[in-house]
């Protein structure tokens, strides 16, 4: 039996996986605002929605004279990466949660998150104006906003917190869990925006085969390797392992738990 994310959230994931640009279908590349550019369009700092990324790609294509007609998907992705058009891990997860909350009329993610109370008035104002840009992986997976969850209880909608190999945290979102007859997970899929996989970076869905859910994520079978034999997400998991793992957002805890009861046959 399979438990999946709500249809609206799945549709948004599909939109990121299949950007429709001038008759071509392109997977959103990875982009992280390493230069910490401020006061810029959110699609240019790795925090855009699919429609914003598509629109900006078309505008930049017009400005730079890029022709879609003869371009392959990879050419378009390369062009997008060269213009800084893509999404980072926390941007993807934030948009998915935000969309989920709004689809069930629970407000926005900004309204649901617990921000640090030590923020200045200016910081609060700026966060209110540009919420998604201020929802990093650390905040989303912090103790104030999420709780650790055992692998045996993992459900779609849970986060997988990993360590960024260049600092910070990396986030993935569980999209689908397959259960056996004893309601124990046998595998789960997760979506992430990853900087790895070379030219194939960006939004992708990967899988973990659960060998033994009573043991940690470290011993499970992480699929979707990069050029070598290892899955980059697994390498990130191993780094500072104690700090990583599966976490459930507090603001969607009830909804996520209910998803397990809405399983469909595989």
């Amino acid at each position, binding site marked *: 039996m399979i438990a999946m994310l709500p249809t609206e959230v799945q549709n948004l994931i599909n939109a990121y996986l299949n950007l429709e640009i001038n008759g071509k279908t392109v997977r959103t590349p990875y982009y992280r605002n390493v230069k910490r550019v401020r*006061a*810029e*369009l*959110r699609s240019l*700092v790795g*925090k855009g929605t699919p429609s*914003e990324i598509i*629109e*900006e790609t078309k*505008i930049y294509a*017009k*400005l*730079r*004279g890029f022709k879609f007609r003869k371009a392959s998907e990879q050419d378009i992705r390369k062009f997008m990466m060269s213009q800084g058009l893509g999404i980072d891990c926390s941007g993807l997860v934030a948009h998915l949660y935000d969309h989920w909350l709004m689809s069930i009329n629970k407000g926005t993610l900004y309204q649901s998150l617990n921000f640090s109370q030590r923020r200045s008035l200016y910081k609060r104002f700026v966060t209110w*104006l*540009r919420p998604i*840009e201020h929802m990093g992986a650390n905040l989303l997976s912090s103790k104030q906003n999420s709780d650790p969850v055992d692998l045996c209880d993992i459900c779609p909608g849970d986060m997988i917190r990993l360590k960024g190999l260049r600092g910070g945290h990396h986030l993935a979102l569980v999209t689908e869990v397959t259960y056996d007859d004893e309601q124990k997970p046998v595998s789960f899929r997760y979506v992430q925006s990853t900087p790895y996989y070379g030219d194939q970076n960006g939004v992708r869905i990967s899988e973990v085969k659960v060998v033994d859910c009573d043991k940690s994520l470290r011993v499970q079978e992480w699929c979707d390797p990069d050029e070598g034999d290892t899955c980059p997400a697994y390498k990130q998991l191993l780094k500072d392992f104690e700090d990583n793992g599966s976490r459930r957002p507090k603001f969607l805890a009830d909804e996520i738990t209910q998803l397990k009861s809405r399983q469909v046959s595989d």
Partner: protein
Amino acid sequence: MEFHVERALTMIIAAFLLSMAFAPFVINVLYKWKIVRHLKDDFSSIIPGRQKKFGKPIMGGLIPLITVMIFVLFLWVYRIFLADSGLFPFLDSIIDSRSLLAPITVFLIMAILGGIDDVLNIFGVKRTIRTVKKQVKLAKVHKSFIKRIYYWITLPVTAYKNIWYALGSYPGKGIHAGEKIIIQLVAAGIAVWWIYFQQGISSVWLPWVGNVEIGIFMPVLITLAVVSTSNAVNFADGMDGLAAGTMLPAFLAFLVFAILDGQVSYIYVNSVVMGAMFTYLYFNIKPARIELGDVGSLSFGALLAMVALGQGKIMLLPVIGLVYVSEVASSFLQGVVRRLMGRRLFKMAPLHYHFQIIGWSEEKIVERFWILAIVCAVFGMWLGLQ
């Protein structure tokens, strides 16, 4: 009134013929001196279709500018030496030709500002902006004491430039936006002195209401009108025939007001501007032979505001010049929404680029803006009669 109408038409034709006579010469000079749009360092080169404009002279505004100056100087010389001679009865009827002194002064200041900017954009050196942080560091560690003092003293200037840079104004080679604003404020100051202090005008006319006293806000209004209209026409100067084609209905509207009110000086100026602008537009429609440049857009924008102020119809300018208002508003709003909220309000600003990005042809955009300008002018004239 028939006399005024006849004289207005005469001046339009005279200005057109005169400007047509020397326009080819001006165009040749601009080509010869290579005062043409260059591809390098021109940010607008990235817009498709803009590449075709490279190599075109960009100080085409000199044609109407020189025409206006010739006619105004002729008027002043005539009034000084041949007043009441009966040689040109129309010019004899312009009793107070000094009423044009302030508008023309503002016009010339803006023209000089725009001209210098155009020339620097072609022949100047790319300017960079030092960050405040760097300048503070230099002020602390530079080995020369005088230099350290200099860096401290000019720190506010650097901060001021950085504010404009943060707002999206890129240095390039020409005059920075912050520097332009200061000079425009000086020009606006002359307008304030002339209208508020010299003539003691502190009220504005509103349709259906009449004169409304606004007191101390008059200098603010005058400054806003001069600076914003000047920049608005500059923003609108982005496509062949756009700025000139939308200025003609605006000046026509104020010409009609001048005729109805018997303001002979302004009949003269508005007619001359229209005649000269017809010549410029003849060479500017697509594919343009020349472009207005800042020398033309800043100066005629300011002149439009001064004419509206001088004729006491300043509150009709936003209606008559709605096209310019929308261009400026689109740029302002785009910048604000982009910086504050990280999203685009328009595909691109000013507004005419938005339409270009969504697929309208340049001709369609320009002609539709012309129609809107005419309609706005008609509406403004209707309001002016209420």
